[in-house]
């Protein structure tokens, strides 16, 4: 017992009393979410309002949980839905199956499907859990739609494609920070999210690094800012 620094434990537990609490009053207050959190999907649109989805079904093919159902159709030449030949005529995601792995986002050739950071949604029926194109497509300002059973907070709907912009489009470290993606409705061409090379500019992307988020909550002893 002598080896254990007997009174050190008592001192430690008393010191903790004056430390700031790490608890977040969750439903009332939410922690800032990590920039690359995988949440509910959106179907993006180009700046002119055209849908990005071309109905290629690559997302459905890659989905490990088999939760995506896509059926493409030909655009009508007079009134096209997407620029190109085909568009996603039916697009359904079953959130009872989705595991939010983001493989669909990786597979998508036109950056049509991305994920928001909203994961707090609860349904009371199976029909509500299956999101159709009506619910998934962003509105005319490029924001995701807010459904009654989803818990959106102020500012949460702005960063809908962080994960995609976090990776170099070529998958190569040499291209880190290079813009290789198309513009989005309501946002234009989004800035790349910084990687580990220090080329980041978080004020432009609007993202807060998860390390910053954590640092404000973690006591100094553990490498945080809070005294």
């Amino acid at each position, binding site marked *: *017992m002598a080896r254990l620094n007997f009174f050190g434990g008592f001192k430690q537990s008393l010191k903790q009393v004056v430390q700031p*609490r*790490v608890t977040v009053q969750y439903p009332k207050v939410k922690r800032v979410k990590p920039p690359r959190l995988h949440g509910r999907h959106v179907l993006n649109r180009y700046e002119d309002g055209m849908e990005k989805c071309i109905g290629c079904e690559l997302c459905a093919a890659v989905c490990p949980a088999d939760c995506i159902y896509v059926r493409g159709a030909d655009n009508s030449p007079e009134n096209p839905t997407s620029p190109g030949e085909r568009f996603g005529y039916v697009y359904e995601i079953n959130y009872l199956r989705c595991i939010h792995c983001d493989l669909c986002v990786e597979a998508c050739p036109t950056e049509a499907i991305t994920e928001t950071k909203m994961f707090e949604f609860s349904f009371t029926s199976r029909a509500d859990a299956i999101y159709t194109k009506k619910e998934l497509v962003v509105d005319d300002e490029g924001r995701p739609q807010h459904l009654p059973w989803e818990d959106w907070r102020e500012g949460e709907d702005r960063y809908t494609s962080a994960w995609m912009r976090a990776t170099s489009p070529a998958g190569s470290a040499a291209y880190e920070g290079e813009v290789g993606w198309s513009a989005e409705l309501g946002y234009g061409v989004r800035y790349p999210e910084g990687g580990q090379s220090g080329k980041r500019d978080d004020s432009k992307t609007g993202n807060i690094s998860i390390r910053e988020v954590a640092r404000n909550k973690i006591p100094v002893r553990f490498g945080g800012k809070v005294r």
Partner: protein
Amino acid sequence: MGDPLFSAGIDLGVLIVVIVKALVAFGLLLVSVMLMIWFERKAISGMQVRIGPNRAGPFGLFQTLADGTKLFFKEDLIPEQADRFVFVLAPYLTLLPAFLIFSIVPVGGTVTIAHHIVELQVADPPIGILFLLALSSVAVYGVMLAGWSSGSKYPLIGSVRASAQMISYEAALGLSIIAVILESHALSLRAIVNSQAPHFWDWNIIRLGLVPFIIFFIASTAETNRPPFDLAEGESELGGGFHTEYSSIRFSLFFLAEFMNTITMSAVVVTLFFGGPDGPGFHFLAWLWPILWFGAKTAVFCYVQVWIRASLPRLRYDQLMELGWKKLIPLSLAWMLIVAGVLVDAVWGFAMIGLSLVGYLLILRASKVSRIRRISALGESTMQQRIGR
């Protein structure tokens, strides 16, 4: 001596006073247990950088009430293998001593109500502190029978641990109490408190030295099965120990008893070593100040109990036995002898110190010899394993 309330015979007035005292004490104890559970949860979450209960009522004060209501309405299960009568009896055997021990603790001075001199304590039996020892032994039965009657393995292990632990530590508890009795020349808790009265340097903690207090505090923590001596419960190894099979209201009785014991033992520590309700008072509301002093001191010890719980890991069974038998009991025995010797004469005091030192060396030698024998009895390889551990 004895209770001045009964000196003029027992009439209706005395009877009413006694009943009112018992009811008030009962109510206060229940309320303070409710607050204690809340306080413990709040304090320990403070030490763990959490917030703790804050939903029910202001600052979560009614959390205990909510939990109690929930437990009350849960299904009451009695295992098929259980000895039904003992199983039902055991929680009350645990709860009752906690109540009754508190009844002999003086919470304040004396007041005069309608020509009756009323001591602010439920009862002041001449046997006083022996009553405490007797009841804390009864509490062992509660825990032991609970585990045994459950007809299940983990509770049985828990109850065996509990009875071994409580019996071992009762010896140290009793020996440290003897030092107090010797110094105060009385068994009655009122008399013990009065003997510590006028100044704080008359408190037993100073008159007797720190040692009996420390031993008593450790032993009482072990008696009440509180961490770090909660081997009988051992959530991580026994799944709750003696109360694994208990649910609903019977479980809440155990829960109640545990926290009531915390308060009671803090109160007893204050009474025996810190002068009880002794403290500076004023003429304005003179009867109130001792009660406040008593409450404040008890609250401090409740906090210390929580502090210990937050700081120390649970002892292993062999560590528990070693602390009890090899350290606390010899130490309290030696200290008792020294106190007794000093009270008789300085020469006897020094003689007892010498005797204690000799005894200490003998114990040291004995444990060394037994260790060597044990090691040589084991094979070489097992010995290395032991040392590696």
